[in-house]
């Protein structure tokens, strides 16, 4: 990547009349085109196939990726994306299957979704699962809408507060607002747990009857299991609230604890984190939601059910159903099926005896990095972490160096930086999540790079402040981007 050259824009290569595709001649009689309805110009590029391929291959070389190396981006679970899953997704029986195929004609796909619903429910201890949400944030939205509808149905529509710890992902409070509800933020205590004093005050005070529920990430966004989690759940549920678990960190829980058994009412899964579906440079994801029996009638639909039981000589017939009191559809069709089938293949490979190992080794890798890095960097919470941990990007004797500079310098050492400045409650936060698929040698190399950077911070801070030095570009002028707002390079269109 380091030596890769920047590329001209697709609009700046090519020549008039050139095309990158060879299309058949029409084999039917031509019909007259409605010229008065047609556009005069279609300002797209004119580039040959070879040029297009080279353009995008060269662009690809400007990216860092998991296939290139360690990607310890906390809260994102950048694990290896198995290649066999990509092959499976491209089988014609999946790739060329129309979403509105009659049920008889898509029994394979429905069987797969039905199995995945059951397996996800089993892994997290929930009664029912809907695969329709397209991403974690959409799963959250579905969950909060279900909680809202549940209270309204019970004549408690005044419950409009959702408690959210201040360490939460930004999607949590944004979700609450989208659902037309209100956020009450809760502080963390010195151990990184929810401040129980504040929680009791919120749940037992005069606003008790307005508590609709709480959203919480387990383990927390600091990578810590809340030792008080059972008390948190009891406190909120005693006040009549529902418990939502943000499942972004499920990679720390598989086979270790089932959120449904802890008492959670609803959670979302990130199939693109825990279950290895590729992040794709920003998406697609898949944000299935699991619920207990209370919320099952409210699930977003459709979900897959057995509509005719297995008979002597025929398998069961699967079909789509809308749950009885469903909050509705989250998207057209049935969710990101391409992600469902990859997650299916992933769970199938590990199976009953292997899924727990994913979590065991993810947590081993994180604690190993933590143990080695805490010799060089401050680590705020003195306890074992889950699948990720936070350290402070602060180096004694180098006060001008910030977490951002350490991150940028890591690029020169050939690593993707950790998540910086999140969670917001730790100053100079560097959130590190190695995942289970990383080998010890690479973890050791990462530690060496971090140690070397700490030395540089003291001896040659300028090197960090101006990093990266070997990436395709240097630091960017983000203020200019927002001020000048150049968002489109297509040739100017006819006036509106």
């Amino acid at each position: 990547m380091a030596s890769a050259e920047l590329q001209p824009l697709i609009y700046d290569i090519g020549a008039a009349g050139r095309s990158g595709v060879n299309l058949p001649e029409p084999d039917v009689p031509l019909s007259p085109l409605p010229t008065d309805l047609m556009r005069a110009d279609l300002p797209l590029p004119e580039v040959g196939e070879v040029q297009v391929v080279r353009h995008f291959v060269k662009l690809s070389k400007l990216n860092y990726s998991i296939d290139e190396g360690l990607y310890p981006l906390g809260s994102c679970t950048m694990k290896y994306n198995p290649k066999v899953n990509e092959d499976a997704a491209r089988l014609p029986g999946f790739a060329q299957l129309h979403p509105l195929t009659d049920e008889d004609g898509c029994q394979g796909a429905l069987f797969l979704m039905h199995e995945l619903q059951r397996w996800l429910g089993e892994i997290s201890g929930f009664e029912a699962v809907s695969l329709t949400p397209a991403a974690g944030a959409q799963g959250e939205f579905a969950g909060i809408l279900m909680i809202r509808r549940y209270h309204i149905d019970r004549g408690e529509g005044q419950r409009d507060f959702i408690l959210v710890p201040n360490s939460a992902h930004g999607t949590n409070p944004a979700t609450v607002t989208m659902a037309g509800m209100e956020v009450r933020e809760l502080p963390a205590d010195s151990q990184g747990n929810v401040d129980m004093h504040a929680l009791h005050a919120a749940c037992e005070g005069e606003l008790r009857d307005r508590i609709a529920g709480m959203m919480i990430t387990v383990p927390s966004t600091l990578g810590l299991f809340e030792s008080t989690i059972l008390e948190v759940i009891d406190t909120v549920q005693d006040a009549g609230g529902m418990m939502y678990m943000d499942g972004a960190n499920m990679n720390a829980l598989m086979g270790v604890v089932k959120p449904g058994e802890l008492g959670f009412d609803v959670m979302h899964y990130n199939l693109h984190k825990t279950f290895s579906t590729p992040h794709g440079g920003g998406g697609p994801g898949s944000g299935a939601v699991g619920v207990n029996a209370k919320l099952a009638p409210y699930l977003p639909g459709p979900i897959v059910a057995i509509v005719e039981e297995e008979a002597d000589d025929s398998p069961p017939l699967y079909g789509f159903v809308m749950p009885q009191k469903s909050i509705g559809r989250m998207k057209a069709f049935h969710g990101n099926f391409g992600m469902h089938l990859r997650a299916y293949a992933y769970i199938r490979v590990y199976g009953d005896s292997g899924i727990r190992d994913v979590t065991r080794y993810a947590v081993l890798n994180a604690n190993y990095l933590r143990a080695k890095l805490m010799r060089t960097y401050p680590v705020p919470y003195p306890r074992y972490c889950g699948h990720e941990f936070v350290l402070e990007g602060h180096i004694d004797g180098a006060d001008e160096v910030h977490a951002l500079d350490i991150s940028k310098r890591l690029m020169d050492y050939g690593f993707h930086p950790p998540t910086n400045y999140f969670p917001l409650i730790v100053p100079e936060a560097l959130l590190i999540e190695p995942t289970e698929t990383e080998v010890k040698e690479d973890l050791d190399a990462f530690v060496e790079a971090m140690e070397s950077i700490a030395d540089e911070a003291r001896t040659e801070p300028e090197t960090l402040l101006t990093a990266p030095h070997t990436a395709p570009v240097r630091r960017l002028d983000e203020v200019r981007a927002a001020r000048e707002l150049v968002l489109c390079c297509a040739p100017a269109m006819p006036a509106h």
Partner: protein
Amino acid sequence: MSYIPHTDSEAEAMLAEIGAGSIEELFEAVPASHRFPGLNLPPPMSEMEVAAEMLAISEANDHGQDFAMFRGAGAYHHFIPSAVNHILLRGEFYTAYTPYQPEISQGTLQATYEYQSMMCALTGMDAANASHYDGATSLAEAVTVALEVARHRRRKVIFSHAIHPQYREVARTYHQGRDIRIIGDRGRGEIVDLLEMLDDNTAMLAVQYPNFFGQIDELATVAEAAHAAGALFVVVANPMALSLFKSPGELGADIVVGEAQPMGVPLGFGGPYLGYFAIRQNYVRRIAGRIIGETLDADGKRAFVMTLRPREQDIKRERASSNICTNQGLMALAASVYMALMGKNGLRRVGELNYHKAHYAAERIHRLDGFSVDTSKPFFNEFVVACPRPVAEINAALLEEGIIGGYDLGQHYYHLDSHMLVCATETNGKDEIDRLVEVLGGLG
């Protein structure tokens, strides 16, 4: 152990470094009463076995490689040049994360910027975001933008009934917690009937182009009427149709949204697809989701970066207008490669092929006894066929002959019982169309 590389001795060495006796010890904070439950899952499988099982499951589906496909209704079977898939399979693209670190993400950033640019070119808009989940959620997000533009003082949203039924359902799901009304789509009226509903409480009016029935409505006067009432005019457009027809921007749209699956994304049983969202310059700061802008690096080199970031949920939190984080980035790359390959001339030719195939099919079906095609308005690659028997019966007969027939409109529109929405694209050869006509002819 599948994708876990540790040897036993490595794991032991790592535990020694940590100072723990076992991996299990690392989970001491998890309540003991609930720790290490059993999992009722199937046993593990090797890669070889999984590959065979996935193939077997996939073959239990009726798909577009084995059947002649005449079904659209929001998901379209188009030719995708091989190069698209080869680019998507570059690990540098599909195994990268969101480009929060722009110095090592210029590939994703520039490709997305080019996608935004080409979507602007197609729609006639000034700016496009990096994607929404699908066409339906793009429409739902357009409602949010319209409400924000009106500073939540206007609480009425008008939808044409000829917008995809599932898109309208999704918009209602999204806005069920808000004090707004979505109206206009319960009847079967024409777009002009919607204009009577416009008033100073209307935040937006939305139509589909071509509409759900494949037809091209006259939009310029609708845009004028919406603007006269101070409402935004939102168009849900199939980008493939924009290869031929006037851009919504030219017709006065303020926001253009829709499903860009036809641009290089396979049917895939409904997802992942690609919601696109394009908007006029004056509303660009209201756009939700990621948006890529051009800038310079410290050496003055042109580079790309996610911009207008303070709108987004990770910064604005409960004051953000949308919670979107993960989007459909890789599908935007597919569309980018597809549009670059097709280009100005290729896409126009694909559009013409769609038009001619659909019109040939429509004309021949219209001549069959018992069948008639609605030709009251111009159409692109889909058209409505009134059938002499229930659509389910017709489709069952077609399936016997290796044909996946049209979509049964009676499922969503009571007045369209025994009406079928038929789609023909460049992938349908004349022989397939003739076979379709022949089988239908036997059912008249």
